[in-house]
């Protein structure tokens, strides 16, 4: 228990490894949070057999006072579907009721042929095998294949989901994809100053890019992939040198 408390008292990100135990209420570390009787556990934390809560993944321990939520932010390359996440999938098969999509998880995901904006039994979009779809995970369960949808169920509108035409897709780590979704991301802002492009980022690590010229697409793709382990200053010079070569 000592290792984690030391991390918490020191400033900077709190790094946890599998087996590190979350401090209990008696440690006084939760005083800033409203001592809600309920703790919500996010990814990377699991209750253990002996009633303690321990990390199961290596990453940075995060805490939100709202709802007393705790989670571990970790990075990996394999996607595990979770409800509500936006992802990019490739159609790999089609049956009467479902499209089968490769989303980079252990099993292919299912997308109902009617889960599109304004789709009816008579009138529904037809997607060929190999098409790229930007969709939302509507149901994810560890024992079943994930289910997807291409519209917002509350409004019935597409909300930007649907087929991604033209463009180029490449794979990144899940941690990088999460960072790219942040509108303040440095690498995308820097690239936007030099070349115009469209992008869609899936939480499953798939990134779609559409730009005017293939050369631009290659540049953007390389810059994004390179940026993962670079600092702000290194990132600036990396983008600069790539743009100069163009």
């Amino acid at each position, binding site marked *: 228990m000592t290792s984690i408390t030391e991390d918490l008292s020191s400033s900077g990100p709190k790094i946890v490894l599998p*087996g590190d135990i979350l401090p209990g209420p008696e440690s006084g570390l939760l005083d800033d949070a409203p001592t809600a009787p309920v703790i919500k556990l996010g990814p990377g934390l699991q209750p253990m057999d002996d009633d303690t809560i321990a990390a199961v993944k*290596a990453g*940075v321990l995060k805490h939100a006072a709202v709802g007393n939520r705790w989670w571990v932010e970790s990075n990996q390359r*394999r996607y595990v579907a979770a409800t509500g996440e936006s992802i990019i999938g490739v159609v790999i098969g089609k049956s009467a009721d479902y499209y089968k999509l490769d989303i980079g998880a252990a099993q292919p995901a299912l997308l109902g042929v009617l889960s599109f904006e304004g789709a009816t039994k008579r009138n529904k979009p037809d997607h060929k095998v190999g098409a790229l779809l930007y969709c939302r995970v509507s149901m994810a369960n560890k024992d079943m294949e994930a289910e997807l949808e291409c519209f917002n169920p509350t409004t019935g509108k597409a909300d930007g989901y649907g087929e991604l035409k033209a463009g180029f897709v490449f794979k990144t780590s899940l941690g990088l994809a999460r960072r790219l979704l942040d509108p303040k991301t440095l690498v995308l802002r820097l690239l936007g100053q030099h070349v115009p492009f469209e992008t869609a980022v899936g939480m499953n690590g798939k990134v779609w890019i559409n730009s005017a010229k293939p050369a631009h697409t290659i540049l953007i793709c390389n810059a994004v992939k390179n940026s993962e382990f670079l600092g702000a200053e290194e990132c600036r010079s990396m983008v600069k040198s790539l743009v100069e070569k163009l």
Partner: protein
Amino acid sequence: MGGSSVLCSVVGPTEVKIRDEQLDKATVEVVARPLVGLPSVKDKAREQNIRETLEPILLSGLHPRTLIQIVVQTMKDDGCILSTAFNATILALLDAGIPLKSILGSVTCIIDAQSNEILLDPTTEELAQAKSTHVFVFDNKSSIANNEDIMDQEELLANVLFSDSTGSFSEEEYFECSRVCFKAAQAVHGFIRTAVEKKLQKEYQQQE
């Protein structure tokens, strides 16, 4: 470790063959490969050792009907290859983000035939002169609990995940070895922690 090095890759959770599918948990497959030639009986034994040690600490129930494949490729063998393989595997599992109950650290020691001294991390040359060889694996739960220096023998052994000994030795010698290895395993755990911290710092430097 020392002159030995092992390359380890982890793939998973991924699709599993119907034949190997388990409805309530992930299937763990370990493949050990020698530097040259076909896998021998020794490699098969190593596969089984690693798989049986990892299965209790892997939370395989979180990914039912999937496969977690671990490939252990020997790059250079200069003694204590099993310990090196264990430590490489745990680092690869951490990097792949596979849910784990705890982390482990492995240490090999020998008892020298002439001097009767305990030697840590032996080379192939030293292994040849050993009276007995011991491989230990400890989890990091124990390193937290034992900070107050409770070096009780029974408690010590409760945290051993794996132990393999060859040669002739007495009971006292065995416990002395386990105590020495336990201390050395703390260094291994510390190394794993710094390795992970370094990698995460690289990832987070843009956000500050």
